[in-house]
Structures are given as C-alpha cells and as structure tokens.
C-alpha cells in the first residue's frame, strides 16, 4: 500500500528552480499518483548527497518469448526503498518520425499509469518510447496492453535496435527518399531480429533524408542510410536575387563556405559547377527558397558507427555511394542479409560490425558481402606499402 509521506529532498528541490522544465517536478508529479516515484526521488537524493548511483548491476528480465526490450534494474537499497526494489524499464518501438495523435499518447499514458511508475522518456537515445520503472510482475500485463493498443517492444542486448528516421518527407523539403516509410518497413520486417537477440552485439539502423543527417546516423548507426541526389542542384535565380537583396552575403557566406569552392557569385549571377559539388547541403541550407536538391534522388549507405567502447568510437563510412530511391528498400534488405551473415560468421562476442571491418580489413569484408571496392569508400587510398597480394595474382 502506498505510503503517502514524502521525505524532504533538499538537493533535488533546488532543481525545481530556474526556467528550464524540471525532471524533479515530473517525478514529484508522478509521485502524487505512484509512491514508487517518491522512493525513486529519495534514492536519487541520496545519490546526490553521496555522489554515486544506487542501482545494482542490471539483471535479465523480460516478457515471454522475447529476449529483449526490458532493462532489468534493482535498487541497491531495497530495504530503504522497497517500491523501487525492482524498477525495470520497458523499451517500446516508436512510430516512425515520432508522430502521435493525442489519443495515442493518452493510451500510452493510461497503460503506464496502470502498470508502472508513470514516468517515461519521450524518447530514449535510440528513439524508443521508454517506460521508466516497474516491477517484474507488471511486465507481461504491460506488454499485453501495449500490443492490444498496437504497440510493441524495442530491442536490447545483442539484437537489432529500433530503427529511427528523421521527419523526412512528412515535413522536410530536402528528404531525398521516404525516410519514415523505410524506417517503418524495416522495423516491421525485422521484429524477430529485434526481439530474439542472436547477433554478436547490438545493431542500429538510422535513416536521414539528406546529408544534414538530423538523426545523427553518422555518429551512431551500424547502418546509416543518408539521402542524397545525383543530378544538379535545382536553382531559382529570382529567389537567389531575393536573398541577395535581403542582405545575404552570397560570396562570403555561401560560395566561400562551399567545401569544394565550386560556386561562383559574379555580377549577381550564381553559378554552380555541379560536377564538383559534394552535396554537402550548405548552400541549400542557407537559401532553401532558391536552391533545392536535384531530382535524381536516393541515398548513400554507410556502415559501422558506434560509441567509444571497446576499441574507440567510429563514424559511419561509405559502403554504397548511391542507391536510387526506388531501389532503396530492396537494396537495404539484401545488404542487411549479407551483412548479418558475414557478421554472424566472423564477428566476435560484443564486436560491432564497424570493429569487425577494422579487424578483418575492408577489402576482405567487401569480398565477404560481395561488393566491389570503389574509390568513394575511402578518403584516400592507402599510404603504406604493406599490401597483402593475393595468392592467385602473384605467380
């Protein structure tokens, strides 16, 4: 039975001051309905006092038949804070682009009020809806209500994680392919890979509609799908003139910042040497009304980003320089099959695919997945002469 008394939280209360919305206020709000949140606040206050966390090393819990989607969490001070002795989070697949109706949000809120702490993250760093804190017995009932409402769990452990995408064609004029559709389709297609961990380690897919990369795929997706175009930038000279008239310094702020200096602004005329353009987006970003991506659209596929653990952080690197928008879904599916096969066969335990490529070498990796090397894959060819020639090429 809830104990309504809330002991003081001197340190945390200070975080209710100031103009930015306060998570402490949120926890207190939730605590009005669910006293587990008061325990959470108390334990957190003691973390603030002692400068250390009070959670035990996570344990394996979940819903029946799924190997992931729930992060087991137990308080290290269960006697003091019995209501958060168990305090697992549930990861829920978000709808592509993080769009909701108010009804959908209320449905989610109601489910979580019934079965959990009433605290959430909208959203987790991977993109999932995070239901923050419940005990083991509530997992299965929460799951059942979620699926009834049309929602399902995300991934955890050595599995595919919920793919995410930028808002794309839903609201952005630059989206070079339908990011939300691709994200949604992939999420549905690979439910098994998400729910029954069978990979060497985690695998993340992120879809950005253009090189601005608004889901930060380059930094954190094992497979980054980033929109781009092949033909010339579409240019509206009248609109260019408008920007200039409005005070934009086109030479300095546009041309001089073009990475390949392929733009020229001369006597009120903007010229782009499109063959030299590397589709960086800068000029388009600055003059959205005047310049637009071309019409021959598609995406670059990049591979292998990750955070620093274990062997150092990696940024995504180019794997397929261009796939036409129409062929994107087919190509991605085919590629994923080959990537996962190769990784299954050669990946070590807890080795992300980017690290695997580093270990076996890009050339061997390409052989393994059946792609030919192209110069777009590298910033520059090797500078060392330590080449492993193939048996069959040397006599």
């Amino acid at each position, binding site marked *: 039975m809830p104990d309504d008394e809330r002991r003081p939280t001197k*340190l945390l209360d*200070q*975080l209710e001051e100031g*103009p*930015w919305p*306060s*998570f402490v206020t*949120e*926890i207190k709000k939730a605590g009005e309905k669910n006293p587990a949140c008061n325990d959470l606040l108390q334990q*957190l206050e003691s*973390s*603030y006092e002692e400068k*250390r*966390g*009070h*959670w035990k090393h996570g344990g394996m819990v979940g819903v029946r038949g799924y190997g992931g989607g729930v992060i087991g*969490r137990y308080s290290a001070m269960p006697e003091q804070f019995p209501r958060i002795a168990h305090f697992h989070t549930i990861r*829920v*697949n978000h*709808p592509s682009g*993080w769009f*909701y*109706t*108010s009804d959908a*949000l*209320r449905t989610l*809120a109601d489910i979580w009020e019934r079965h959990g702490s009433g*605290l959430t993250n909208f959203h987790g*760093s991977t993109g999932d809806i995070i239901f*923050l804190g419940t005990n083991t017995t509530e997992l299965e009932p929460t799951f059942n209500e979620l699926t009834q409402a*049309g*929602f*399902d769990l995300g991934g955890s452990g050595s599995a595919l994680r919920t793919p995410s995408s930028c808002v794309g064609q839903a*609201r*952005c004029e630059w989206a070079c392919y339908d990011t939300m559709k691709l994200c*949604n389709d992939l999420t*549905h297609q690979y*439910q098994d890979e998400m*729910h029954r961990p069978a990979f060497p380690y985690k695998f993340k897919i992120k879809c950005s509609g253009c*090189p601005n*990369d*608004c889901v*930060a*795929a*380059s*930094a954190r997706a094992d497979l980054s799908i980033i929109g781009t175009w092949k033909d010339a930038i579409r240019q509206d000279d009248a609109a260019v003139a408008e920007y200039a008239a409005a005070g934009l310094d086109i030479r300095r*702020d546009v041309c001089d*910042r073009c990475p390949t200096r392929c733009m020229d602004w001369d006597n009120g005329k903007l010229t782009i040497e499109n063959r030299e353009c590397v589709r*960086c*987006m*800068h000029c388009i*970003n600055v003059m*959205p*009304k005047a310049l*637009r991506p071309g019409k021959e659209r598609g995406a670059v596929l990049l591979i292998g980003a990750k955070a*620093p*653990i*274990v062997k150092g952080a990696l*940024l995504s690197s180019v794997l397929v320089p261009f796939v036409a928008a129409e062929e994107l879904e087919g190509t991605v599916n085919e590629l994923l099959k080959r990537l996962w096969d190769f990784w299954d066969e050669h990946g070590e335990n*807890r080795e992300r695919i980017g690290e695997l490529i580093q270990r076996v070498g890009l050339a061997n990796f390409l052989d393994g997945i059946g792609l030919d090397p192209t110069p777009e894959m590298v910033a520059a060819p090797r500078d060392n002469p330590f080449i492993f020639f193939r048996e069959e090429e040397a006599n």
Partner: protein
Amino acid sequence: MATETAKRITDIGPPNYEKFLPPVIKRNYGKWQYHEGIAPGVLCHVSESGERLYTVRAGSPRLLSVDTIRLFAALADKYCGGYLRFTSRNNIEFLLEDPANIEPLRKELFDAGFPVGGTGASISNIVHTQGWIHCHSAATDASGLVKSLMDRLYSRFTEETLPARVRIAVACCLNMCGAVHCSDIAILGIHRKPPKINHDILKKVSEIPTVIAACPTDAIRPAVVGGKESVTVIDEKCMYCGNCYTVSPAMPLDDPENDGLSIYVGGKVSNARTAPKFSKLAIPFLPNNPPRWPEVVDAVANIVEVYAGGAKKFERMGEWIDRIGWPRFFELTGIEFTRYHLDDFKHAGLTYARSTHIRY
C-alpha cells in the same frame, strides 16, 4: 496455456505512422518546397501546393510524467487537431495549420513551463542519458546536469543569436548512450580509479575469460586471490573505461571522490560544409558537484560565450576552432592545456601536429 498463447499478440512492431500524420502533412507528403524560420521555435514549411504548415517547438526535460504527456495531448487537441511529434533531440513539436494559433499556443506552453525555441542558430535540447535515475553504470547524473545547464543557457534556447546551432550532449559514462562523441559540446561522466574487484563473487557472477577479454588495454589478468579464482587489474594499464564492469558486477568503478566530468568540443554530425567529426578533449576533469554542477555549467557557458564572440556566421564550433587553431582556443577560453590532451590511444600518432603551420 495453449489458448492463452494463441491470444497473445507478438511482433507487431510500432503502429504505422500514417495514422498519426495531420491531414495537412498527408496532403503534402513529399511535396514540401521550402521553409522559413518565423520566430525562434517556430517554423513554416511551404508546399508546392501552396499550403503552409506551422511548427511550434518546445523544450522538454525528456523525463515526463504521464500527466505532462496528457497536458501536451490536450494542447494538441486545442490548437492543432490533436497532432504532435517529438524531435530527434527530444523536443515536442506541435503541427499547426492555422497561424493564428501560434501565439496562444506559445503562451500556454511558456506558462506551463515549456519554453518555445531550439530552432536555427540556437542551443537546442541537450541529448542525454539515464544517470543516477536509472543506470548502474553512471559516474554522474544526467538529468540534473542538463537542467542546470539549460537553466543557464536558457536564452540561447529561446533566441537564435549564435553563429550556428550548438549541439550539447551529456553521457553519464563512457558507454556514451547519448552518442555524445560528435557534439559541439560533449559532457561525459568519468571514473578515475581502476575497478575495485569483488573477489568473493566475481567467479559466480561472471565468466573470467569474458572479463579479461573486455579490457581494451589488456589490463586484466586471471589471478587467485584469497584462495578464490578471480582477476587482478594492472593499475597503470587501466584507463577506467568501465567495460569490465559492463560484463561483470564484481568490477565496480564508482568512487565519489574521484568520479567527475570531462568536456569535449568541436564535434558535428551533419555533412554541411565539413565532414562529420569527433569532439575533442577540452577539459579532462571537473568535479562532480550536484545538485547544480557549477564548475561544469560555468565551463560550458564560457565556451559558448567565447565561441559566440569569435565565430563567423554559419561556423559550427569545430569549424571555428579549425579556423583559429587549437592553441588559440585554449588561449581564448583560458582552459589549461595538459598532458591529458595528448592522445595516447591507438591512433595517437595521427593527432600529432605534422606541419610547421603555427600561429604565434
């Protein structure tokens, strides 16, 4: 049992997003032509059809109670037919057809404590992680730090007065769940002492070969301690990454005296102008000082101010530093350059200055 299994729904994935798109978006999906910033936090997208969509973006603590979610739902009902979305940096976006609703919505949001902003050349919401709220691995709290930072940087969120967008991220341990490593300013919780091994349980709770293999620097060796099969850590080879703890609860690293924060700067993700880049070390250590982390907040505010004063229009933090050079960055910010700034990990040699290009 068999009947119950039959009823149970699994692997349905998320609801299709199309159900959640407002009509104006459905009508203009893939047809947007250009956009304009109308005010900080307010965007207007114009379709080839001539239709306009207004977006009002508000800041969020990300950690939301169900009641706050209901509040957002109610606002969406009131101003935009019940449609809203969240952004990749955890802001809330209301999707309006009628521009007359912008102002009232903005006012209601402000009144409820949710500032409108985060667009264009501002500091948007801080991407962050669980911290002491939920993670076993945290060297610091994330939410409290973010709240403290955003209180200080508040007007940088509500105004678009910076040379370019500044993306800040916080991760509470080296796992970097916020993927902070490519941020304009990255704040990272760190340990500074090797794990304190719990020899009594190690063998029981983890596999010794896995623990040994987890260490990037080969600091862990098998050992028998007090008659128990366990491991030892060669202290000089440990750089406190915590990967051993991830695989074994018997290797905790937290240490109230020595844990703290480090700050990395100049990373980016977009391909705009320059290629994506990692953030680089600015400040190796600041004390873990809840509830307000004044040292960290001051340090970040200082970096932002120096950047705001020195960078040219459209120059992201890392692009500005590349232009002025790292020595000048340290000079202008007054940050001390130490031995810790010198890389000594795998590709260290490639970070050395291999030219005589020097400013005096």
